[in-house]
């Protein structure tokens, strides 16, 4: 056929490989094929890998204890001994940047994953079911949406019992962010589901005997997911900074817990006299946020088959 577009067949032996191409993997493996050609994918993945390593094994990067105060050297500028200088307590800033990754990445990742799961699920049901279900779920979302972040977080964090356990503290912050953050994800998902639902391929799937569950899983969700992924990666950065905000107000993570947010808050007072105290944690925060946003961009492009 002369009018047939010539398809790019990247695989040498498609039928042999094709045997084990499943629903999730065909989409994912094709996305992977696109992603690995993008330099941004490799840059952002490398950055994220480094941050993840920092979060899991901070001792790989530094042997200095981030809570060891050398008060005589407080606020000293970067030098050969303390690469990033020391802060107002005489803590080694380099070490604190490394150790701070864990709290920030944990809060960012967990909040993003949970808001996406909760908000996404609610959005899919509201958008697909329509009618009463939609009204009920949307209004429920609006209630949470109307609560200001700080007020809501104060309520959540103060209501929950106090704890000294590191992970429980992090989980409390995550919970506060998820409770207040899911409605915006639900709205986003709902509107893209409503956009996808009337498409002919959804009708066609129904006409060919697909169950409602399969229509949602194979046809609606994969086509409605792209905006969620982009917003989720942008939110990841926002959640890391929200954690910093909450810590600054004294209701998020608390010293001696080390996090970029805690350090940024502490450094703001000396912004003019000792900018290095603000600069390094901010740099780490920005790089982490940038890496996730960049990855989100690449993933979105890869998930859209028209870009292939």
């Amino acid at each position: 056929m002369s009018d047939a577009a010539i398809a790019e067949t990247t695989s040498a032996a498609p039928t042999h490989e094709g045997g084990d191409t499943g629903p999730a993997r065909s989409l994912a493996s094709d996305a992977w094929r696109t992603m690995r050609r993008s330099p941004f994918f490799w840059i952002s993945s490398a950055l994220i890998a480094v941050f993840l390593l920092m979060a899991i094994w901070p001792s790989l990067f530094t042997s200095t204890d981030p809570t060891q105060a050398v008060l005589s050297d407080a606020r000293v500028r970067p030098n050969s001994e303390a690469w990033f200088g020391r802060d107002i307590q005489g803590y080694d800033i380099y070490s604190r940047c490394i150790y701070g990754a864990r709290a920030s990445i944990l809060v960012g990742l967990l909040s993003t994953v949970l808001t996406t799961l909760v908000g996404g699920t609610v959005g899919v049901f509201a958008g697909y079911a329509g009618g009463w279900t939609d009204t009920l779920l949307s209004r429920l979302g609006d209630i949470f949406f109307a609560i200001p972040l700080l007020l809501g977080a104060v309520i959540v964090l103060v209501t929950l019992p106090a704890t000294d356990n590191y992970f429980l503290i992090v989980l409390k912050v995550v919970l506060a962010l998820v409770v207040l953050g899911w409605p915006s994800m639900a709205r986003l998902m709902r509107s893209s589901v409503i956009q996808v639902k009337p498409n002919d391929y959804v009708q066609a799937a129904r006409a060919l005997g697909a169950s409602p569950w399969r229509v949602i899983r194979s046809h609606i969700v994969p086509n409605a997911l792209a905006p969620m992924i982009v917003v989720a990666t942008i939110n990841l950065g926002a959640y890391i900074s929200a954690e910093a905000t909450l810590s600054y107000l004294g209701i998020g993570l608390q010293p001696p817990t080390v996090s970029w947010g805690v350090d940024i808050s502490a450094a703001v007072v000396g912004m003019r006299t000792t900018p290095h105290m603000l600069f390094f944690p901010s740099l780490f925060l920005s790089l982490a946020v940038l890496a996730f946003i960049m990855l989100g961009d690449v993933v979105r492009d890869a998930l859209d088959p028209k870009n292939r």
Partner: protein
Amino acid sequence: MTVQDTTRTDDARVRYEPQDGVLLEVEDLFVEFHTADGIATAINGVSFELHQGESLAILGESGSGKSVTAQAIMGILDMPPAVIPSGHIRYCGQDLLTMPEEQRRKTRGPEVSMIFQDALSSLNPVFPVGWQIAEMFRVHRGMNKSDALQQAVRLMERVQIPAARERVKAYPHQFSGGMRQRIMIAMAIALDPAVLIADEPTTALDVTVQAQIMSLLEELQEERQMGLILITHDLGVVADVADRIAVMYAGRLVEKADVDALYASPAHPYTRGLLESIPRLDQKGQTLAAIGGLPPNLMRIPPGCAFNPRCRMAQDVCRTDRPELREVAPGRLSACHFAEEVIDA
């Protein structure tokens, strides 16, 4: 067939056998759309039968209710706003409208299947076409992935997609319009349905491709002895493929006849108008006869014959009495008070 397949067939699948060769029977079907502006009667008492191996063309202009008929048969109308106040749709004697939804869903695909107008938008853009065809086998027959994909390649070859083996992993947008429609056809016939509904399958395609798709459909229909319902507004498209033609106007059947008889002498002024409005090479230099006016608003269908405001032959009786569909010649039905005169004209 694996052992698993056989048990599935015994347990889960209801066996459907046509009764006296009748696959599908639509009886006095009404479909209304309840909107904010009022009730639009899209289908106003339609009855027809589809026999095994028969091609029935349903012909009509936009808004005549032909697509709604197809959607009602498939059970994919959005309800609400659509309401089916009365009527029956029987598949092999089983009323689809009273069947539990889950059982009905299982008839879609293996028993009754459908092809849509615009194949680009009928294929899921994020999955390779082979995967989408294979999904039919995996969902309905419980096949494993590699077997299902092999079947998909075989089907793509059957609908004459060149280099099917290589293109099984391509995405819908990498195919031309005609090829996409072939893939849609492959999906629709994957489970060997007894009834195939094609809703304007060639409207989005150019003329040469239209002919290829129609001949493919005809070929498949004969090969598998399917009942084919061909929904179209194009009289030229159906002439070769259809055995019988049902003409719809404002939600009602106005004429039903064998294709040759209908082309030779239509028994309804509307059908005649449609035939006269086909451009013909042997009538060079003449003005094309068109049917004046517009189809009626479905919320305000005129009393009497719905076609009377546009009909050249309309008399007083047409404005007051609605003509019922009646046999005007052997095997020919027409809903016109003056059908005999129309045939003779």
